């Protein structure tokens, strides 16, 4: 392989695929990036066998070929290269990087040993505008479980039924549901996509991209711009999430999102230090105001926010992190909070927007 390219293009390719490089695999070759030429493009590939990312950049190809090189070292050297024309040449499994009158050699692996990121031969193709999908990921990824005791909760359920698209996630303490419309779509899909894949889609998707989704029984390929992401689907049945969403409520509150977020963030500074070591924040809702009176060994906070209240007074405690997470993804000026008492799940949704809701279960005192 012999190519001439720019530093910024190399950096773009490395940055795009780097998150798919395995960080804890016992196979050293999975901690590498594969580069191969095709016509006048250089393809970057990385996989940890669960997610695979491919990306192509335009280069001047003088000799076709492919190489596999350690990702960390290559990434670091690319970042430190000068802004000049870069020549890369492979020699057996190694590569020589030439810049000015200097060169840097990286020892690589045999490309034949690198696992192939195979395509999905499916004619089914769903098109989704990037802005819709990015916004839906942002709203739902907050509720994914981190622990892997139940893998289905570490992903986001993607359900497409004709023109309706739904993303749902839950860690059993909270649940986020976002829905939207894909005009003209007739196809159907249902699968649980790992949150790591969703994070990568969110990171790499540009607002003017169109996302193309192809799938088979256990894998999905997502293509946009010059990027392709191939991921396995999480096996298992996502529980019936509709049954946990309350249909009625006793108290409806309309709260300024920014003020509420600032207040909860301030209160959580003290709640982190409390003797229970839980990040609890307690709201006393009465007379069209939310009162927070929090204290710990390190201090005390008294806050009051004026709100629009419709319904009964209620005292309710939450994990402050859950409230902060939802308030950060709601972009409307006001947020609607629907409560059915101190022990029932509380619904948060943007004002005048029925397409998103986040359900948070109060803490039991």
């Amino acid at each position: 392989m012999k190519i001439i390219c720019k530093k910024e293009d190399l950096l773009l390719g490395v940055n795009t695929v780097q998150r798919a490089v395995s960080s804890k695999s016992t196979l050293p070759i999975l901690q590498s990036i594969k580069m191969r030429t095709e016509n006048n493009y250089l393809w970057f590939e990385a996989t940890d066998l669960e997610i695979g990312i491919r990306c192509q950049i335009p280069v001047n190809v003088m000799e076709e070929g492919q190489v596999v090189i350690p990702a960390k070292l290559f990434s670091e050297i690319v970042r430190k290269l000068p802004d000049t024309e870069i020549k890369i040449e492979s020699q057996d499994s190694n590569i020589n990087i030439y810049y000015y009158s200097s060169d840097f050699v990286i020892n690589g692996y045999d490309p034949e040993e690198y696992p192939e990121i195979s395509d999905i031969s499916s004619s089914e193709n769903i098109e989704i505008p990037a802005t819709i999908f990015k916004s839906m990921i942002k709203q739902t990824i907050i509720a994914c479980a981190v622990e892997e005791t139940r893998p289905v909760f570490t992903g986001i359920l993607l359900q497409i039924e004709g023109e309706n698209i739904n993303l749902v996630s839950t860690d059993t303490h909270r649940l986020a549901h976002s829905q939207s419309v894909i005009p003209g779509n007739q196809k159907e899909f249902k699968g649980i996509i790992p949150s790591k894949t969703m994070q990568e889609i969110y990171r790499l998707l540009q607002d003017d991209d169109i996302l193309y989704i192809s799938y088979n029984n256990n894998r999905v390929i997502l293509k946009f711009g010059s990027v392709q992401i191939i991921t396995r689907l999480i096996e298992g049945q996502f529980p019936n999430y509709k049954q946990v969403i309350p249909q009625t409520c006793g108290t409806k509150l309309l709260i300024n999102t920014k003020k509420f977020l600032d207040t909860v963030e301030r209160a959580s500074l003290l709640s982190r230090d409390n003797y229970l070591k839980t990040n609890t924040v307690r709201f006393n809702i009465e007379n069209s105001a939310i009162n927070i009176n929090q204290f710990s060994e390190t201090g005390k906070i008294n806050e009051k926010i004026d709100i629009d209240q419709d319904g009964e007074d209620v005292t309710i405690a939450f994990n402050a992190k859950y409230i902060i997470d939802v308030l950060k993804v709601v972009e409307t000026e006001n947020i609607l909070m629907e409560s059915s008492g101190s022990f029932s799940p509380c619904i948060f949704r943007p004002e005048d927007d029925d397409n998103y809701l986040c359900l948070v279960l109060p803490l039991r005192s």
Partner: protein
Amino acid sequence: MGQLYQAITEVEENISRLLGEVKSLRQYVEYLEEENVSLKRQLCAVSEADTERVQKNAARIQKEAHENLEKLYSEGFHICHIYFGENLEGSCLFCNAFLRKD
């Protein structure tokens, strides 16, 4: 001619005897069907007292089961079908929904 006439007479007599037997069989079948219906009714009939007793018993069992599940949940165990019996950390939306549904 006399022989043929006698033969026809015998056939006629046989047919009328057979008809008589069919008639009596029909009556017997009707009786059996009536008896069958009445026996079925007797089998299915449950007295109001029995119905009430069964319903009360079911309600009691359901109440006890609900209380037991509530107790388990408050003692820190999952009662939802996803994690049933496992240690509960904080609270669970699915356990909560299960208790509300009951």
